[in-house]
């Protein structure tokens, strides 16, 4: 798509940008010098957008090997006096906790901003943790924008605040900010000042305990100062809603108040407009530390205050503590009283429900029966599935088949990536999914538990680089009896095909060589390692069966490019896409293929008799050909060569 890059518009222009694009633009306006991330939905596109323009504007952008590394890279740059960014989904904050809780003690010189994307609805996350607790843990301020414009402007401001306090700063967003598009007025892009220099200061940066202890006091002073600065933060604002309209009059004639932050603020606005409940609303941009004077004055005039926030009741907790300390007689309500749901994202309707419980007003009509019933009866779920032609399907089939033939039971510890979709029937290929890199170590634990059953693990190439390597070293060092499979498609596919060390090209588009997976595994001390084409099911089944019998850890690298990359390359090279065909004379409608591998390209036909139908998005991988006991499925011709490993994710610039 030969479109002008949307984040490069001129100052004063008004353009439609997603929240993630707005944050990327905010970084350009702040003159960011180093930007890092590990891909993770919903934050991934921030660094993709920055990567698109990094060479042109002269700053450094990278997809790092994992979040901890990304944060340390950015922190190093910030210690050298330049502005740097690290973007992550909230689960990545767990990884950065280790350096973060010390770098808040050392502080930084150049601005260091961490974008953290929380996922209250768990659209693509294993949990719904609230990263504001990490702000409290590390004593790092947390800012929250309510829309795209604020996301851009606050990103720029976060760098200034970070420099003023010499502390990292969190900007917390949610998927509704990341992926919504807003009309945004652009500011001036500032060229990056790439003039970093690390100045030696051991008592500040060498955090042995004797040097660290005195700095705790400095950190406490900094976070107290952050609270004072928050009192005058221009994005903390109060509004009076009278009769469905926000009025400028700042007199506190309402005794019912609402405190809202992030995306919940527009929901509150909308509900007050419709229900015409009169309220004073505090739009809170600095959720940690609280702007104490501002919140105290707000509470002082109120009889009751509703706190509307997503994830956990953090503002509720802090506000209650403040009210108690200031001895204010105000009823504070929110999640604790069951008015705001404890989990899941909010929306205008849920905020409306809270006001209905309090005041009996109605935000909308009840949903009528035909709507709800219609959905349940006719509409099947569309759960995310492994794509048609996905090599992971072939790998899972082979692993399960090997275990079936062995007849010894067995467990398969999974990891984080596209291959999670193999959990669904009929493959049911993994027995756990915990966090990035957990598979190999957890399999090790099971192998030491005294079980007689085979213990396997499954991890993708990107996740193996991210955090699988230490677990594999550990498995060798401590002699775990496991079979570890690495599903290698040489790209980080789950989040939309981002580069990783195995891809050969980095985010800046520079060839930096492919990390050699097999050599890394060997260097960890694994003696038995083999590389097998994922679609060579016979070899893969034999290999798994054989390795189960071997003592100690062994590794099988099951390799084949991502089906979507293959399809893209077939299209770009104008090759023919061969599809599977069903011989109606031979197909008896036994459904064995469906029960074994359940490819999304399978459909069902009734004319002239019940039979398997191949849907148009089949890409001819040929796995189903082997499944049919009657030889009814065939693929006219196999594709030539490997059409994916050499993918170039971005125009190559040297």
């Amino acid at each position: 798509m030969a479109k002008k890059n949307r984040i490069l518009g001129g100052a004063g222009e008004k353009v439609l940008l997603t929240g993630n694009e707005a944050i990327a633009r905010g970084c350009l306006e702040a003159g960011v010098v180093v930007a890092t991330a590990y891909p993770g939905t919903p934050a991934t596109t921030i660094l993709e957008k920055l990567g698109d323009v990094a060479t042109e504007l002269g700053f450094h952008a990278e997809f790092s090997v994992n979040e901890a590394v990304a944060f340390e890279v950015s922190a190093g740059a910030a210690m050298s006096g330049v502005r740097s960014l690290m973007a992550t989904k909230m689960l990545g904050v767990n990884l950065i906790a280790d350096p973060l809780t010390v770098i808040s003690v050392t502080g930084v010189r150049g601005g260091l901003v961490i974008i953290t994307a929380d996922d209250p609805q768990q659209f693509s996350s294993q949990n719904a943790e609230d990263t504001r607790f990490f702000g409290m843990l590390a004593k790092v301020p947390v800012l929250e924008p309510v829309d795209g414009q604020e996301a851009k402007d606050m990103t720029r401001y976060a760098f200034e605040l970070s420099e003023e306090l010499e502390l990292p700063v969190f900007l917390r967003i949610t998927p509704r900010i990341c992926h919504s598009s807003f009309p945004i007025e652009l500011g001036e892009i500032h060229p990056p000042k790439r003039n970093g220099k690390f100045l030696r200061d051991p008592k500040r940066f060498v955090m042995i305990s004797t040097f660290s202890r005195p700095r705790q006091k400095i950190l406490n002073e900094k976070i107290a100062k952050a609270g004072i600065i928050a009192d005058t933060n221009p994005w903390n604002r109060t509004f009076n809603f009278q009769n469905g309209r926000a009025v400028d009059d700042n007199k506190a004639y309402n005794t019912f108040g609402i405190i809202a932050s992030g995306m919940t603020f527009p929901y509150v606005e909308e509900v007050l407009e419709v229900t015409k409940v009169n309220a004073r609303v505090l739009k809170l941009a600095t959720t940690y530390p609280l702007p104490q004077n501002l919140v105290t004055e707000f509470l002082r005039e109120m009889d009751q205050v509703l706190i509307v926030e997503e994830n956990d009741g953090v503002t509720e907790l802090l506000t209650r503590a403040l009210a108690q300390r200031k001895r204010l007689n105000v009823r504070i309500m929110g999640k604790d009283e069951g008015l705001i749901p404890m989990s899941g994202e909010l929306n205008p309707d849920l905020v409306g429900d809270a006001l209905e419980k309090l005041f009996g007003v109605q935000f909308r009509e009840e949903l009528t029966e035909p709507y709800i019933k219609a959905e349940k009866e006719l509409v099947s779920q569309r759960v995310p599935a492994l794509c048609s032609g996905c090599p992971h399907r072939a790998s899972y089939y082979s692993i399960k088949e090997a275990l079936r033939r062995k007849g010894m039971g067995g467990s398969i510890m999974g990891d984080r990536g596209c291959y999670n979709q193999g959990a669904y029937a009929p493959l049911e290929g993994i027995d756990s999914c915990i966090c990035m890199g957990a598979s190999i170590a957890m399999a090790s634990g099971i192998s030491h538990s005294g079980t007689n059953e085979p213990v396997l693990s499954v991890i993708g190439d990107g996740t193996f680089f991210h955090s699988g390597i230490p677990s594999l070293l550990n498995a060798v060092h401590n002699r775990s009896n496991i079979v570890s499979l690495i599903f290698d498609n040489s790209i980080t596919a789950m989040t939309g095909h981002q580069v990783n060390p195995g891809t050969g090209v980095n985010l800046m588009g520079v060839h930096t060589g492919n990390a050699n997976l097999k050599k890394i595994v060997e260097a960890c001390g694994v003696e038995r390692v083999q590389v097998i084409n994922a679609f060579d099911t016979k070899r893969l089944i034999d290999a798994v069966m054989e390795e189960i019998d071997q003592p100690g850890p062994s590794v099988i690298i099951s390799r084949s490019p991502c089906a979507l990359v293959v399809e893209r390359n077939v299209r770009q090279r104008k090759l023919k896409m061969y599809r599977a065909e069903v011989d109606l004379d031979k197909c008896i409608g036994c459904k064995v293929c469906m029960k074994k591998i359940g490819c999304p390209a399978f459909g069902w036909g009734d004319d002239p008799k019940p039979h398997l139908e191949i849907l148009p998005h089949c890409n001819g991988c040929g796995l189903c050909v082997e499944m049919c006991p009657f030889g009814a499925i065939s693929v006219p011709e196999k594709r030539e060569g490997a059409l994916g490993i050499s993918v170039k994710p971005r125009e190559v610039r040297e």
Partner: protein
Amino acid sequence: MKGSFNMIDCGVGGQGVVMMANIVGEACVRAGLRVISGELHGLSQRNGSVIAHQRIGETAISPLVPYGEADVILSLEPMEALRYLYFLKPGGLVITNTNMIHPPTETQMLAKGEKERYVRYDEVVERIRASGARIVEVDALELAREAGNPQTENVVMVGALAAVPEIPVGKEHMLEAVKDNVPKNALDVNVRAFELGYGSFKPGT
């Protein structure tokens, strides 16, 4: 909410729902209208259900359309229109592609014998109509093929949308946004797809 025009764009991952929403969004910007769009990425890979919310007008505040407040549901797949029907206002308009894409879970239910047959298009449409919605049916796949590329179903649907009288964006702005969003080497085919969609529009029944 009053005074804002609310839309739901939906379909199946791979059909180009997000691009459809982008086109409508950019057409609004061209027409000088305030617009906020809420999309969901991440698991919108192939086969997943994809939805985008769009709110057009000066009073558009949050990107989410409240339940029962959408003026139009623009759907690339009939079952998806039914899935999100609870967003539609009473008597609102559903513009749907007639081409069904059965979810793999439905096929799995057939395989396991939990279901006798696929849900039929006429059953889905009948349910949509029973809710009191007006419905415009567009054979987008056929029209996309006629335009020269079956992958232009989403642009056909944008064309049909552009012909709806109550849409606050004119045809010209919509067409310009289409041209701006499609690959340059596929411009003609997409303009044809748009025009065929536009021409196919018949006021809803």
